[in-house]
């Protein structure tokens, strides 16, 4: 189509006073937005190619570049915002479903931002984490309902297999294929150094990463890619992925173009074939079916590995979680509607699912009421953005959180939301050799370790302020939370009081 109605979304502003025409912007832009015009010795830019990933901005040695939203406006209309108009034009040109990368960016409430933490004053004095011990270690999995003794009165160890983590945080599922080999290496090495776990996603486990098995959660999803007994037995835990926060109710599709070399081998599918993960597991249509898969996986691994069932936070999440807690699963992972993805239909990402804070509070409450909370640990994800979100999630009843978007940001991701193009300028969501080498794992893993260690310090500070010296004492401690600007219904679902109460 010769004519496009869409004006570039961003404008690359170049300060010609500072530009020394070193051309690093041109060399580093996989979208080929920058160009050097030798005749006039000048850099120019095609704004329509810019995805606002900030690679050029970050590498420009003289800070000559910045990117702004282009000022072009349609006639003011409170109903037809510019975004809706552009989307109509895009679909009228392409005839296709709109695709998006990363999490839901729309203006829905963020409940974490409407919850405040407590601190001790006078009575129950605060604890200084620099001077006194502060425990962030946690353990995940089912807990035995009662103590059993043998005929001599000695304790029988009836503890199911559990995961031990140095802090209540794990890297959530991102497949090898959706992200690069180097990104996986960063996550695996960081998880090992930090004493936490990362997750393979549905892409299998590359041979090189079997050495990190004790820090790996291996995922089994609807496509069953890369699943075999060695894989299952190598991980510290197995995750059955039923759903994903960014796209509840739909499956996944890694285009054949990305199924090359090691990725094809690791996924155990032919090169060039599309990797299609169906929306449902075709063998799971009930909790009883789920129970069969849970026990099949336990059987393969000799009942040595905890099984996680991951679901998206949807309207009836409490009933689903209640079923999962009775299915034999050891851990429930719930992914909120802000959760990230490499690619999702925009409408699904932006309109399906519910906030993780509400899902977490209501699941925790329901499992308590039904007396089955100890059957499972709860892990929540879907936009944990900083350490205070973790503290609030734990106080709402989570045992642990999952992060992925924040982890990728530590590796360089600038949330340009173009993962699905496969041309990630930061070497994360790409398989192009010249792009994936941009992420040197020696640098990336250290940045991840730095981020998580910084969060660990902050968590200790916040716990200390509340007079709490272990994560266990914070868990489900909703008295440490107060809502701000929330209505009665929201407060009652979250199970917290309003600030001032």
């Amino acid at each position, binding site marked *: 189509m010769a004519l496009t109605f869409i004006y570039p979304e961003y404008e690359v502003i170049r300060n010609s*006073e*500072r*530009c*020394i025409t*070193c*051309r*690093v912007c041109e*060399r*580093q832009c996989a979208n080929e937005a920058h160009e050097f015009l030798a005749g006039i010795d000048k850099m120019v830019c095609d704004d329509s190619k810019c995805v606002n990933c900030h690679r050029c901005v970050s*590498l420009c*040695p*003289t800070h*000559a570049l910045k990117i702004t939203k282009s000022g072009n406006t349609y006639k003011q209309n409170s109903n037809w915002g510019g975004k809706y108009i552009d989307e109509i034009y895009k679909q009228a040109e392409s005839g296709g479903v709109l695709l998006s990368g990363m999490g839901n960016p729309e203006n829905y409430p963020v409940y974490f931002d409407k919850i405040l933490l407590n601190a001790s004053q006078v009575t129950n004095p605060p604890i200084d984490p620099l001077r006194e011990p502060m425990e962030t270690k946690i353990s995940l999995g089912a807990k035995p309902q009662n103590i059993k003794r043998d005929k001599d009165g000695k304790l029988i160890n009836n503890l199911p297999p559990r995961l031990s983590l140095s802090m209540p945080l794990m890297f959530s599922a991102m497949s090898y294929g959706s992200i690069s080999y180097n990104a996986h290496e960063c996550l695996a090495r960081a998880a090992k150094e930090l004493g936490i776990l990362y997750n393979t996603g549905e892409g299998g486990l590359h041979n090189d990463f079997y050495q990190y098995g004790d820090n790996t959660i291996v995922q089994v999803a609807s496509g069953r890619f890369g699943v075999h007994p060695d894989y299952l037995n190598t991980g510290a835990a197995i995750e059955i992925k039923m759903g994903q926060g960014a796209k509840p109710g739909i499956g996944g599709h890694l285009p054949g173009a990305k199924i090359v070399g090691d990725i094809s081998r690791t996924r155990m599918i032919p090169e060039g074939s599309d990797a299609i993960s169906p929306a449902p597991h075709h063998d799971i249509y009930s909790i009883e079916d789920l129970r069969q898969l849970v026990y099949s996986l336990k059987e393969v691994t000799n009942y040595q590995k905890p099984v996680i069932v991951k679901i998206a936070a949807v309207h009836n999440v409490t009933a689903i979680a209640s079923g999962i807690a009775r299915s034999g699963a050891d851990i429930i992972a719930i992914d909120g509607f802000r959760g990230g993805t490499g690619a999702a239909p925009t409408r699904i990402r932006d309109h399906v699912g519910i906030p993780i804070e509400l899902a977490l509070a209501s699941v925790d409450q329901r499992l308590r009421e039904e007396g089955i909370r100890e059957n499972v640990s709860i892990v929540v994800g879907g936009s944990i953005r900083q350490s205070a979100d973790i503290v609030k999630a734990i106080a709402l009843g989570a045992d642990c959180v999952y992060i992925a978007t924040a982890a990728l940001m530590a590796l360089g991701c600038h949330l340009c939301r173009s993962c699905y193009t496969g041309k990630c300028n930061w070497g994360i969501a790409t398989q192009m*050799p*010249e792009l994936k*080498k*941009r992420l*040197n794992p*020696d*640098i990336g893993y250290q940045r991840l370790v730095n981020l998580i260690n910084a969060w660990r310090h902050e968590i200790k500070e916040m716990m200390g302020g509340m007079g709490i010296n272990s994560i266990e004492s914070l868990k489900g401690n909703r008295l440490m939370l107060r809502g701000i600007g929330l209505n009665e219904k929201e407060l009652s679902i979250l199970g917290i009081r309003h600030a001032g109460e």
Partner: protein
Amino acid sequence: MKRVYVNEKWCLGCRLCEYYCAFQETKESDMARALKGIKINPRINIEEKNGISFAVSCRHCEDALCVKGCITGALSKKEEVILIDKERCVSCYTCILSCPYGAISPSQDGAIKKCELCTDSASGIPACVKGCPNNAIVFEERLG
């Protein structure tokens, strides 16, 4: 001795090393002011072909052909770093012809130029190493 090593696996061919090298030489505080409108002549250069790229600079060879061949004694080795005495250099370019790595180049000031490991910088870390965004250029001691 610490030397500049290059790992082509991580070299992006972004050429920032060349610009940081040229900037370091100017002793200016602001890169834009220092290099605006100037065609740089850095002591480190990126070689690239077919998607492979790496930076080349003086390796400070143990048995350095450039030092051997220098007709005026302008090139000398001091504490394992090969230095150029600009006063003595007569620009005969024998060193440029004899260097197997192409790491020596002519300059505008009547003498050849080559990497001296930023021995005169405050931090002691070569500018190309500091400026490399992907740790493709490192400054370290290696055995053998």
